[in-house]
């Protein structure tokens, strides 16, 4: 038996897990694991042909359980997601090595468990991404769910609570998926992708509806689609720093992967489009699109209210997932490309942002946006990384987030969906406002006296951040690089592929060339710089030599601080924050509480003989019938 590249990759990943497990307590274990992630990434890059339309690479591992053939293989879709997974794993693990590890251990954290959980997450994600049929997909799905729980619960306290909430949602989602699988099996007699593909064509509308709801809901839980989004922000935010960078970058995109595989590839957008909702003008696809749009808007505006930088970012992670789904659901060449490209782009800037915030926490001990400020003079590089990250997150040129969002907007306009477009723009507005809050409250304004002596983050943390920042800019300048992979993913899942160029997309309905856009932008900066520098030497003044209505400022008095940021805006939109989803969640909880109470009542009151009798009767009846 010869090992294929995929076998190598999975074995490598398994070996990483073993290293983390057995010698993870030793010296420089973090570095060792990081290097192993690098090795995995190299193995993945050997499969790079997949990203450019290469054929499927199967694993030699496959077996049959109860007549079901379980197999694993990699195609362009898996490769694309695996690239993001391993890239973010490598960089966040690198970020964790050295200074962060030491301070984490000093605060009582278990660094061994952290690396172990990371390695487990990566392995299980790779297994999920490699799934070759619906059964292996389900196995991978459950693995990813539990591995994620391990990482989220690490920090204890609030984190464990958040992780418990997550796993409750994930289990419910898993049940829905399992139900869907059972339904698929009953109609196709097999869980192989080919068999399902054929069976879908002859399925009744009701059945297809049920499947869309079950799978969409189940996978949507992981993606944090409305109304299943409540668990995500606290769970990701409370994970130890590099862990949240990793989870925020890729973890919830596993849901999108599964949606692409099952809903888009197997069921087909056309089939979903044919599912009309009676008495309305909309169908299942519109429903998904609107869910995506509300997933953009609500969490984004919730993010604006957060006072903890990590929570703010985590809420954005949910919102940005909406853009991805929206693009995929629009399903034309541009929309699909935008949605898929956003997966890549989001991973890069979200990881960078979480890392920058973690660096700030590492130096100042807090992520409370009301307790920071003015750090730009002390941590200028982290500021740069955060700035580049938020430009990407807000979807402004010259960073990569602009390209993917532009593609999504453009496709919405091309396909004649102005309302969705408007809603997506409202979401972007909220994003811009809240990322301004992020950078302003951490880095701008008055430096606090207690942060006078703060230093820039150590290089072990700075290096991965800078690499990510460079990726964000370069893929913004040359979006053709990831678009090539995206185009082959589109082909694999049966969406029309985009015509990409190095600088963007080429299309009759509107082209984008980022090289030009950025060229013009930088020419503008250049003119500004010429004016600025030709005007002679400028003078730098102390922050306290500042205008405050003519008041003499001193360091012990804070003349600039923030609390209740966007008070004016909140006055306008504050009434809209009603916690309806929290209320919904609570009502479901109390319903389940009530049911379990009823069951307990039965169970406690009745005596054992009654049970015995009824069971015996039931068994007899079953045998007879």
């Amino acid at each position, binding site marked *: 038996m010869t090992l294929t590249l995929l076998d190598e990759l999975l074995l490598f990943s398994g070996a990483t897990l073993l290293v983390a497990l057995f010698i993870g307590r030793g010296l420089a274990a973090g570095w060792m694991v990081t290097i192993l992630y690098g090795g995995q990434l190299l193995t993945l890059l050997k499969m790079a042909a997949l990203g450019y339309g290469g054929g499927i690479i199967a694993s030699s591992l496959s077996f049959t359980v109860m007549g079901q053939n379980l197999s694993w293989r990699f195609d362009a879709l898996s490769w694309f997601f695996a690239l993001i997974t391993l890239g973010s794993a490598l960089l966040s693990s690198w970020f964790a090595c050295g200074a962060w590890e030491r301070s984490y251990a000093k605060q009582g954290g278990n660094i061994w468990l952290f690396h172990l959980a990371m390695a487990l997450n990566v392995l299980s994600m790779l297994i999920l991404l490699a799934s070759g049929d619906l059964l292996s997909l389900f196995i991978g799905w459950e693995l990813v769910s539990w591995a994620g729980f391990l990482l989220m619960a690490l920090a204890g306290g609030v984190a464990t609570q958040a992780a418990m909430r997550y796993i409750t949602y994930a289990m419910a989602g898993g049940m829905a998926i399992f139900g869907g699988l059972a339904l698929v099996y009953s109609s196709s007699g097999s869980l192989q992708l080919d068999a399902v593909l054929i069976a879908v064509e002859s399925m009744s509308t009701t059945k297809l509806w049920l499947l869309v709801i079950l799978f969409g809901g189940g996978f949507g839980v992981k993606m944090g689609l409305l109304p299943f989004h409540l668990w995500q922000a606290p769970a990701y935010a409370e994970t130890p720093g590099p862990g949240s960078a990793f989870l925020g970058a890729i973890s919830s995109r596993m849901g999108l992967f599964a949606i692409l595989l099952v809903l888009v590839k197997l069921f087909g957008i056309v089939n979903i489009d044919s599912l009309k909702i009676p008495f309305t003008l909309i169908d299942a696809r519109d429903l998904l699109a609107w869910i995506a749009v509300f997933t953009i808007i609500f969490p984004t505006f919730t993010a604006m209210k957060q006072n903890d930088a990590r929570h703010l970012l985590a809420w954005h992670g949910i919102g940005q997932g909406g853009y991805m789904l929206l693009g995929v659901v629009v399903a034309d060449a541009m929309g699909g490309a935008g949605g898929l490209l956003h997966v890549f782009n989001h991973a890069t800037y979200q990881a960078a942002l979480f890392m920058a915030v973690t660096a700030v926490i590492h130096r100042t001990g807090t992520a409370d946006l009301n307790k920071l400020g003015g750090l730009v003079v002390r941590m*200028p590089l982290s500021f740069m990384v955060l700035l580049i990250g938020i430009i990407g997150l807000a979807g402004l040129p010259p960073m990569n987030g602009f390209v993917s969002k532009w593609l999504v907007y453009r496709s919405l306009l091309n396909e004649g969906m102005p309302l969705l477009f408007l809603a997506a723009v409202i979401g972007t507005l909220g994003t811009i406002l809240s990322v301004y809050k992020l950078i302003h409250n951490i880095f701008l304004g008055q*430096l606090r006296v207690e942060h006078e002596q703060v230093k820039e*983050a150590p*290089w072990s943390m700075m290096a991965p951040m800078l690499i990510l920042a460079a990726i964000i800019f370069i893929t913004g300048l040359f979006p053709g690089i990831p678009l090539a992979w995206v185009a082959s993913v589109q082909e694999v899942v049966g969406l029309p592929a985009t015509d990409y160029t190095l600088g963007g997309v080429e299309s009759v309905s509107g082209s984008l060339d980022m090289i030009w856009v950025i060229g013009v932008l930088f020419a503008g900066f250049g003119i500004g710089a010429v004016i600025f520098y030709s005007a002679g030497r400028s003078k730098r003044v*102390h922050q*306290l030599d500042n205008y405050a209505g003519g008041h*003499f400022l001193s360091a012990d008095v804070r003349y600039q601080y923030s609390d209740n940021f966007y008070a004016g805006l909140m006055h306008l939109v504050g009434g809209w924050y009603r916690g309806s989803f929290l209320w919904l969640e609570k009502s479901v909880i109390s319903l389940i509480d009530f049911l379990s109470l009823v069951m307990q009542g039965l169970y406690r009151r009745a005596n054992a003989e009654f049970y015995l009798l009824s069971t015996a009767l039931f068994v007899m009846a079953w045998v007879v019938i």
Partner: protein
Amino acid sequence: MSSINQIPVIEAKKGNPLARVFDELVRFCRSRSLFILHYCTGCGAIELPPAMTSRFDMERLGIQPMVSPRQADILLITGYVSIKTLKRVILTYEQMGSPKYVIGICSCTVNGGMYWQSYATAKKLDEYMPVDLYIAGCMPRPEAVIAGLQQLMDSIHAGKANSWEDYYRNYDYYLGNQQKLFGDNWQTPTDVIAEAKHYNLLSKGTLGVHTRLLEQHQQPLEALEMRLGHNLKEPTE
């Protein structure tokens, strides 16, 4: 004002004509985009809202309010200045970037006006900072304010509104008056002498007994420097 530099001397125009055209252009632009700092003292301030808004509308002359002294050109002193306010006025004046112009509105800024007998007001504004223009009255109407501003624009255009240079040339005189009023340990964050050097305006009157007194207790406020790669030298924590 008692300085000999204030006596007008007619100089022969020299230099190349192109530079003169350029200077002319700069002066023209300068006089047509004036920003008034939002800083008001005394009762005369009440005449500014009508001057600014639609009835008299000084924005049609290119004059607008500005919120920060660093970007502002004009400091309007709109009435009596109490000693406490004067400290703030001086601080703010020094924070403004040159060229800057001071206009004293109201009689109180000229000679103390009806507060002449007050122990708490500064009588003559031009003892503490050079004033370009006074608009007298108790209080002057918006027309007068606008007429005054137009006169300032004309003199900026003519290149004659350079009393701000006097603050650097005769800093010792102004500082002396300030010290007399506020006490010997008076200081502002701005390093005026360094600025005088920057503008090439350091002259005989800049330094003197008063500046020496200031130097004895002055604590300079250095700009916060960006600490880039600062951690390179640091020992691991």
